[in-house]
């Protein structure tokens, strides 16, 4: 059995905004939601609820603050259901625009109803490609679009301006629901028309780096995705060539090099696998609009890097910023310090890799060199001057025993302590960042055992009363702490012992790691580059030789708490 029974969508306040039942009688959302919320966050994606009738497997997924739930009464492949939920989110985004907002769903129930009904027929998932749904879902806001002869078509104001051989274009326009045979390419809707032809490639890499206290990297991965936006009339056949930027040279031909760098690649079904396996190029007929072309990962350490690699290996990663954390500082050992620095090597590198765009030359003439750095490319804003570091943030999670951070002294930017999350957040404006010293944040921790005159004395005694009975090895400590209600007293009476004790206490309250987040435009950790993007005019349909799509490339490296330093 692999039939979806129902789909419930909740907004960020856990209000039900969509309830679609496919089959049978699953427990209603009002029953499932409290049971789901019972589990502590982060909640597992599959929860077994034996108490409902019938016993239910509850699948959940969160996308753009919306909670997608799907109950099932029988054993189904869990990943099938979860992938299905992601596809629903993708499809809704395709129709309603990104980001997916609750208000968009509630305002467009007619479209949403059709999408969720078409994506699974009677609960059996049957259409995974959002773009193909355009052929069957009626989206037109009314007569207005119909008068223009096109429904739900981007750039629909003037169809058939560009495109292939003229004769065929005279054919009467059909509305999607009428389009007879459907597209021959299952993932591409039929009759695509665009007034301006555009192709955008976005390479996004997410970093996941773990650094040992010594600074040597334990693991360093870049998880990459290629988001492709194709707005070309007809059925274009594209050829995307990537280059490794020098990595892995000497490993045979370009395809081998590329496959050596891009590991464990997954593709959208449109990519011809044998072309990739033989030549290392991606040859595909894209869906119309935006889609995820491919996903890959890059081991930044190299597959067989020695474990004993020292700190130099960390520099080899070429990260745009590094973070260090030192604990147990200050006279009491109650301070810790976080420092972010910019490795010198990263400043000059990748300068030319800024968001590049190009207006392709005639037809086939795109060669490696023809991507030139330009301004205003890719639709972004002014990132023409080199990689731009954004949203530089450091998170320092603290143990629950920490009562307060009494003193935070960032040399740049702002830091604040949120007891709810149990972490310090330090934001550094990217323009301030840089320079030789980097930026430093120093914090003083106050735990429940903090000595001082803030009334912690009673707590101290209460907490340690039982603890000290067996610490025969340090009898002096008990005496001194017991009698001390102020720091000065303790320092006169067995100051050394108490200091040691306090150090140990604070050590327990010290953070064990710090996480660095940032976004960097125009640079990829893997060093991959888009080398060429060609429209194969021979294989394409309905794309005339005179069609020269505008091509844009964008690189982005993101770290979402992805660089973790331990101490």
């Amino acid at each position: 059995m692999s039939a979806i029974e129902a789909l419930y969508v909740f907004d960020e306040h856990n209000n039900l905004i969509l309830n679609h039942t496919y089959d049978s009688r699953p427990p209603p959302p009002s029953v499932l939601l409290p049971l789901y919320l019972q589990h502590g966050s982060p909640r597992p994606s599959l929860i077994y609820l034996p108490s409902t009738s019938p016993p239910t497997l509850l699948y959940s997924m969160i996308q753009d603050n919306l909670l997608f739930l799907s109950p099932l009464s029988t054993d189904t492949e869990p990943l099938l259901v979860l992938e299905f939920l992601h596809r629903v989110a993708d499809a809704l985004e395709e129709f309603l625009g990104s980001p997916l907002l609750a208000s968009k769903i509630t305002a467009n129930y007619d479209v949403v109803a059709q999408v969720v009904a078409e994506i699974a027929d009677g609960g059996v998932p049957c259409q995974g490609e959002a773009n193909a749904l355009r052929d069957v879902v009626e989206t037109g806001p009314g007569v207005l679009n119909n008068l223009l002869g096109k429904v739900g078509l981007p750039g629909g104001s003037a169809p058939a301006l560009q495109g292939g051989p003229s004769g065929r274009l005279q054919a009467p326009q059909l509305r999607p629901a009428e389009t007879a045979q459907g597209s021959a390419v299952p993932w591409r809707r039929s009759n695509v028309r665009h007034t301006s032809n555009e192709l955008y490639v976005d390479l996004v890499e997410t970093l996941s780096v773990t650094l040992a206290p010594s600074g040597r990297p334990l693991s360093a991965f870049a998880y990459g995705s290629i988001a492709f936006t194709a707005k070309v009339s007809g059925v274009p056949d594209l050829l995307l060539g990537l280059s490794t930027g020098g990595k892995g040279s000497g490993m045979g031909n370009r395809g081998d090099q590329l496959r050596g760098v891009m590991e464990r690649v997954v593709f959208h079904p449109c990519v011809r696998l044998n072309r990739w396996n033989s030549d290392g190029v991606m040859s595909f007929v894209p869906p119309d609009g935006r889609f995820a072309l491919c996903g890959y990962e890059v081991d930044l350490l190299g597959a067989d890097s020695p474990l004993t690699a020292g700190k130099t290996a960390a520099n080899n990663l070429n990260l745009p910023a590094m973070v260090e954390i030192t604990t147990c500082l200050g006279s009491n050992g109650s301070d810790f310090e976080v420092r972010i620095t910019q490795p010198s090597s990263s400043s000059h590198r990748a300068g030319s890799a800024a968001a590049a765009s190009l207006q392709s030359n005639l037809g086939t003439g795109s060669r490696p060199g023809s991507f030139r750095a330009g301004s205003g490319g890719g639709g972004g804003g002014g990132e023409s001057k080199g990689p731009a570091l954004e949203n530089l943030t450091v998170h320092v999670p603290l143990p629950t025993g920490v009562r307060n951070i009494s003193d935070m002294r960032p040399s740049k930017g702002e830091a604040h302590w949120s007891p709810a999350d149990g972490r310090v957040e330090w934001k550094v404006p990217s323009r301030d960042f840089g320079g030789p010293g980097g930026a430093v944040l120093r914090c003083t921790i106050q735990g429940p055992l903090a000595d001082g005159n803030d009334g912690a004395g009673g707590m101290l005694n209460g907490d340690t009363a039982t603890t000290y009975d067996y610490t025969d090895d340090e009898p002096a400590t008990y005496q001194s702490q017991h009698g001390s209600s102020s720091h000065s007293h303790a320092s006169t009476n067995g100051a050394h012992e108490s200091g040691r004790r306090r150090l140990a206490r604070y050590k327990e309250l010290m953070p064990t790691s710090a996480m660095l987040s940032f976004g960097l435009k125009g640079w990829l950790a893997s060093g991959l580059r888009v080398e060429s993007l060609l429209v194969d005019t021979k294989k394409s349909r309905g794309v005339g030789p005179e069609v020269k799509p505008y091509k844009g490339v964008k690189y982005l490296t993101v770290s979402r708490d992805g660089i973790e330093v331990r101490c």
Partner: protein
Amino acid sequence: MESISRISSLLETARDLTLEAARDAGPRKSTRPLPAQQIKKLLDSRTEREVLDGLRRVIAMQYANPPQPTLTFFPAVLKTLSNPYPSTRPLVYNYLIHHAEADPDTALLSINTIQKSLSDSNPRVRAMALKTMAGIRVPVISQIVSLAIKKGVSDLSPIVRKAAALACVKCVRLDASTKPQVEEYIATLLTDKQYYVAGAAVQAFMEVCPDRLDLVHPAYRKLCRMIADMDEWGQLALLRLMTVYARRCFPRRTKTVKRAQTREAKAKDFYEDLEPGAEESEAEYDEIEQIEPDLALFLKAVQPLLQSRNSAVIVSVARAYLYLSPTNYLHHAVGPLIALLRSPQDIQQVALCNIVQVCLCNPQHFVPYYRHFLIHSTEASQIWRLKLEVLTLIFPFCGKDVQHLILAELEHFSHGHNVDLVRESVRAIGRCAQSSDAATSRRCLSLLLKQIHSPDQHLVGEAMEVVRHLIQRSPDEHRKTVVRLAKNLDSLTSPTARASIVWLVGEFAGYEPDDNIAADVLRILVRGYADEDDQVRAQIVLLAAKVYLHYLNAKNGKQKAIDALDGPDDGEKRDKEVMSPTEDDDEGFREDAFGHSGPIQQAEQQLEEQQHAIELLYQHTMLLARYTPSYDLRDRARLFRALLSVPSSTELASLLLLAPKPVPQAPSPSESRKNFALGSASLVVGAEAGISGVKGYEPIPDWVLEGREPDAKLRDDGDGKAEYVPASQRAAVSAGQMLDEALQADPGYKSNGGVKKEKTLDDWLDEEEEETSSKDSEERSGDEEGDRETEEESEYETDSEEDEKAGLVR
């Protein structure tokens, strides 16, 4: 696992905000509720725009939360079906499916209109009508639906055939009695040459009749070849089907190369089954898993699917490899499984469950990927738990430096703040220790012993538990360790740890009776009894009982020895013993034992008067236990007292207290769900679902016995079979009908000859070449025409032309 919405959220800041997105979501008419009367008026209107608007409002009301009553619009909505506007159809159908159950009589009014649409010239309209009709949940119409499906199955348009395949599922749900007919339809559709029709047919097959494997034989090879082109959902269904099919239809064979090709008996297969990971040993034995060509066809055909973007497909392929050919193919699936770790958290968790499952069978394959399983401090507990497990599973197979890294990693997390993580990582160290060689094991132990001085109570408690397990595994090596641990009792505060140590001391109380610390430890502990935690008290009481028992045993042993020596002389004393088995008596024997040495005798005599220290200790402890608030503890004390009340008869007490303890095994946590099939929900849910798994769980069937498998020839006539089935079916009807139907079906026949292979996308795109070849063949069938239309349409061929063709054929 790749989803565009996820990438979009990454791009959030650098989003390429297109006008298109804005326009699609564009300004819509406000959906403020209108009075019902006005909506009815909109629905009754003659303009398309107003009807559409009315329908939108009805649908919005139907989905709104809380839902508003929309049943009253039923007649008005159905009336709009008579409008010629196709744009309103999807919404009307949606409404119809939603409300049909509530008002079946009204719903039936629409059947006629829908039936008309079934013979519309536009295949999309036909498909939608079929889909809707099957979706109406009114059991009376099941026969009509079945007929409609029958018509759809032989439709020229693959879109309609796909809809027919999916309608089969709904038809059987509606009325189970239609199942025999529906199975026939599915059999026909399985052999369809359009890959997405076949994919949908497989989905329907899995929903309706997953046991009718006989229907699959003729389509087997074709399906295998088509799997790469199907959509993900078809692939998933087919992978599930083929895994079962292969187990049921291909007996497992192995052969030994050196000897003449003897086919190994089933027993041998069974052995292989238990050890699927015997890859390197295979080279030594020269024993090769023999894979039938048909099975190999499938296993090869699914290999490209490992690059699918759909995580479920990857896991399904891994499942097929794990259960069908672990030695030859499984390693292909390991890398792609690792790739799943970069997917969103929800998928990652389920993927990890599956990775652990594969890892339990075959840890070696995962060794190179150890870096992927290092834990991040931000990860959810479900995820790091599983990652830790993988790390411990691959630990014994790693090189020295990697082992070192893993241990350092575990040590780091054992100092963390998260109580659960501390516990799990300490346990993981224990698992590493028990699965590796002695040297590493010692290192793990010393690592754990270091933790004992940590101020963190949880850490100490957990570490002690694990240390206890390790000591128990090889007690002889660890006598010294126990003494060292006992010294720590002075400083330790964690009750769990103290209890563990006290228990260990008790276990070791029997070794080297002359030089044992147990009694001394008891003496010290009893002093602080009042301040101890309950679990420590319980262990103290137990320790007292054990020490006392050992003392009694030793004494009785000596007594027996003396009895044997002294023989009849001793009879008198034995009588005494029987008559009054008191403590004093025992002391009496003791006196005898040392009778020959004067000064000692003196001392013993003194002791005798005051009783032996151990006895006193024991009695004191029992007294303490008697006034302990915990009733459980009091009960235990009572039990011990009763057991040990007769000092001379300690057999029962020895049996109870000194029984050799089984060596504790800390199995990998997922060991308990090892029996569940890879990729099932029961595997993820685990023990919660019970032994038989969640409802609907189906285990992977055993290999079919040699000789019981269906004949391989059944798969041979795959292409011919497609023609036979409908033909034999038609044989019963009248000649005239037969002629008609033959005419109708004729193009379909020939197409089988005309098209030599399935059309993959590439074929279609390389159609230039093929075009000529297909023109050569005279018999260009109508069905192929249909395909050609599909192709041409994207070249902006007109629709009307194609409709004409469709009409001609009909």
